[in-house]
């Protein structure tokens, strides 16, 4: 699904964490993002949406959230904890 170019990274997160098959994982992510399942694999839609939500893009411009910053935002949207974010916050003394 082309990772951060589309929504493949988020669909895979749902598979990994919740053990959902591909159609159910896509529906979960589409609902959280407020888009259609078809939009998840459309880079025209997803690049704009990801930039707007600050959840990581292929070519981040200056000032855009990247890496763990983007995942902190993503965690809130997807509605489940991302382990690397939890650990980052612990180490940074944010929780």
């Amino acid at each position, binding site marked *: 699904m082309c990772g951060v170019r589309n929504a*493949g990274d988020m669909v895979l*997160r749902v*598979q990994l964490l919740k*053990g959902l*098959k591909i159609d159910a994982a896509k529906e979960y992510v589409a609902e959280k993002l407020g888009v259609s399942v078809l939009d998840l*694999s459309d880079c025209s839609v997803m690049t704009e949406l990801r930039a707007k939500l600050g959840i990581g893009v*292929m070519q981040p411009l200056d000032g855009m959230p990247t890496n*763990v910053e983007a995942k902190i935002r*993503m965690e809130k949207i997807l509605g489940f904890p991302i382990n690397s974010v939890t650990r*980052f916050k612990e180490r940074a003394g944010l929780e």
Partner: protein
Amino acid sequence: MKKYMTRMGDGYRVELSEEEIWEDIKAGMEDAVSRGGVPELSGEEQQKLFDIITMPGTVVGVEFGKEVVMTSDSGAGKVGHLAGIQIDRIIGAQIHERVCANDSVDLGHIDYTYKAVKAVMHDEAADMQHTVNNTVMPILYGAMTNLGQYTKPDGPCDNWAELLPQGKIKEALAAQEEAVEHAVKDIVYIGDGMYECGADGMNFDTCGASGDADFLAALKAVSILREKHPDMGVEMGMAGEFVLGMHGGLTFDGKRLAGMYPHEQVKVCEAAGATIFGAVVNTNTNESLPWNLARVCTFLKACTDAATIPVHANVGMGVCAIPMTDFPAIDAVSRIDKALVEVAKVDGF
């Protein structure tokens, strides 16, 4: 008579007529049915396979909306140690994310064995921490159980591959059982360390490579890690289509492991706590792509029907109909991938 260009299992081109392609589809499917005791593909599914194999064009793709996700095995290291480009795995992971647009990647030590990683766990975990802090996509830690590494002179256990030909059956069984316990301890130690540094999950690669005891070690380790870390992602990928009975009497969740095919392997992986199952069907280099692909789709359709968790088909060279060559041709790979998604209903690669 019109001929269609396709491939043999070793990757070389071959031209087959419509009749020859149909003969190979039927024969490959029947081989899976007789070995695995799984249902045949329907007439519609067989026709879909034929259509995919004979589609014009070098590259074919799935229908809109049927795109799937990908995991990897030792993915982050491949830019560096396979392509010989002088970068480390952390940069490799970033390239996979923001140049190759992968859905995920796994970090793995070059030895790719839990036993080898144990001695350098703190360095591996530090690399994991830096990687997850500098990427967006899921990062797994991958390694193989490689139970043979626990035999003398490299490990503490007697070598069952030497004991069995000597007729020392009891000793061979005991050695495997002892090795399982050592491996479980190592795998859990590494799983704990990686998870504490922020890994999204573990990739248990080539489960069952040394037979049923090797598979049991992975299952037991996953079971313990699932209990300790309920939110840890766990992918279990197999070594082959059939679990070899090097021991023969080992069970998990009340099921005998030796002799299991993918539709049975996935059920014990689910019971252990895996969230993704990596299915393998071996490629026969002496048979054609239609033969291999029909055989794979028959096995994997039964597997995805039985599974409640997502199934990622292992599509490296020499597995799941991909030709046994380091650089498989894209005409073959794209047709195989399309068929695995649209006929075998896999959830990823």
